[in-house]
């Protein structure tokens, strides 16, 4: 519906701006609108909260990474400007803490005698390793469901960060009367159809923050959503900063052009 609303705006057709969706019989399992929550990165001057990015990275690493890949993010990105702001040494240490698939060894092997993938310690140029070697393995380990890659998740879902936040904090123990939960699924009204294959990932104190922040579910969700927003849009701060300069320049240029325009046309009327 987000797309529809935006287009409604574009077309500015006020009379029809509130579409009424066709109602299904009985209980509607259409997902609820996302929760209202504010993020530091929103708005024309919004920036990423460095501490939140670092805490969010910890949540991703200690919780999400068990099932979800982050294929498009490299360790080096963690130290780049506009990101979590880890130092070069910290980035190296983080990278070295991950086991990435090794290149073929001198005998040309990529697996050991037991068939396990050979690994080596990561370097900053490496990308986050995926938890499963391929889609089939991912499905086999997750009762048939495929945990999506998280690199672009905030841009690939309507309402992006708000949707992910609502989903992470929206699990409920009991489904409401009249709704039959599918066997092996979990109840989350912010997910389309209300049946989600992912069990509630975040609980209070799922992680222990080194900066002393209290790890409530809301705090963890807020932090990891901030981290995922950066993962999806790492150049946001550069974009907004450059945009500000460009707009100032264009406004001044428009002013000069307007003055020239008035001067040139002064003798034409």
């Amino acid at each position, binding site marked *: 519906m987000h797309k529809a609303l935006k287009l409604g705006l574009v077309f500015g057709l006020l009379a029809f701006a509130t579409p009424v969706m066709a109602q299904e019989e009985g209980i509607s399992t259409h997902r609820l609108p996302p929760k209202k929550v504010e993020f530091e990165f929103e708005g024309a001057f919004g920036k990423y909260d460095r501490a939140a990015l670092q805490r969010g990275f910890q949540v991703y690493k200690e919780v999400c990474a068990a099932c979800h890949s982050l294929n498009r993010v*490299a360790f080096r990105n963690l130290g*780049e400007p506009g990101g979590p702001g880890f130092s070069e040494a910290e980035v190296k240490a983080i990278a070295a803490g991950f086991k990435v698939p090794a290149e073929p060894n*001198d005998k040309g092997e990529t697996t050991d005698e037991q068939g396990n993938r050979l690994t080596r310690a990561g*370097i900053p*140029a490496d990308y986050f390793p995926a938890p499963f070697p391929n889609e089939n393995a991912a499905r086999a380990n997750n009762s048939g469901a495929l945990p999506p890659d998280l690199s672009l998740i905030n841009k690939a879902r309507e309402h992006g960060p708000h949707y992910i936040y609502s989903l992470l904090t929206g699990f409920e123990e009991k489904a409401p009367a009249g709704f039959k939960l599918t066997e092996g699924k979990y109840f989350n009204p912010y997910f389309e159809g209300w049946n989600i294959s992912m069990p509630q990932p975040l609980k209070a104190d799922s992680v222990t923050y080194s900066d002393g922040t209290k790890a409530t579910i809301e705090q963890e969700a807020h932090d990891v959503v901030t981290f995922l927003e950066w993962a999806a849009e790492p150049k946001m701060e550069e974009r907004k900063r450059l945009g500000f300069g460009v707009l100032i320049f*264009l406004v*001044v240029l428009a002013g*000069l052009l307007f*003055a020239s325009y008035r*001067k040139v046309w002064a003798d034409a009327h």
Partner: protein
Amino acid sequence: MTATTSDATTRRDFLYVATGAMGAVGAAAAAWPFIDQMNPSTAALALGTTEIDLAAIQPGQQVIYTWRGQPLFVRRRTPAEIASAKAVDVSTLPDPLARNANLPDNTPATDADRATKPEWLIVKGVCTHLGCTPTVSTPTAPEGEYGGWLCHCHGSAYDTAGRIRKGPAPENLAVPPYTFLSDTRVKVG
């Protein structure tokens, strides 16, 4: 022409010049992203470091690695090769400079300044003439007269310290920045 109209003309001219200059500045600034996009990307820059395990390389053997997309010669020199390189008078060389990225630009091309650990000569495998890859010389299959390398493109001959001795190449083979992490492990870049 009266003073008044002349002033007005000046003011008008100034406005037009300012507007035009501002537009030109904007156009020039806008060109930069389109130029800079052709420079190496951050992903390419991140791969600028390579670690090499030297344990398996035998004396007299050269192994070619890839560094920043170009060949990197790692040569374990024999005592004879080291001795022949040390015997050369630096002042007679076509290029008397070490061309070693680990040392100041004006360092002379002595063998010790070409290879900090005499046994290990590490140079970019790129002929300084027009960028071909020189062929290594061994006692059984000599290339050129100086025991180092010969570039077959235009006949530049290098000695066992990778220094240009004969042919059109203007400089010695470049020594990349590197550090020994241990006796058998070197980090290039």
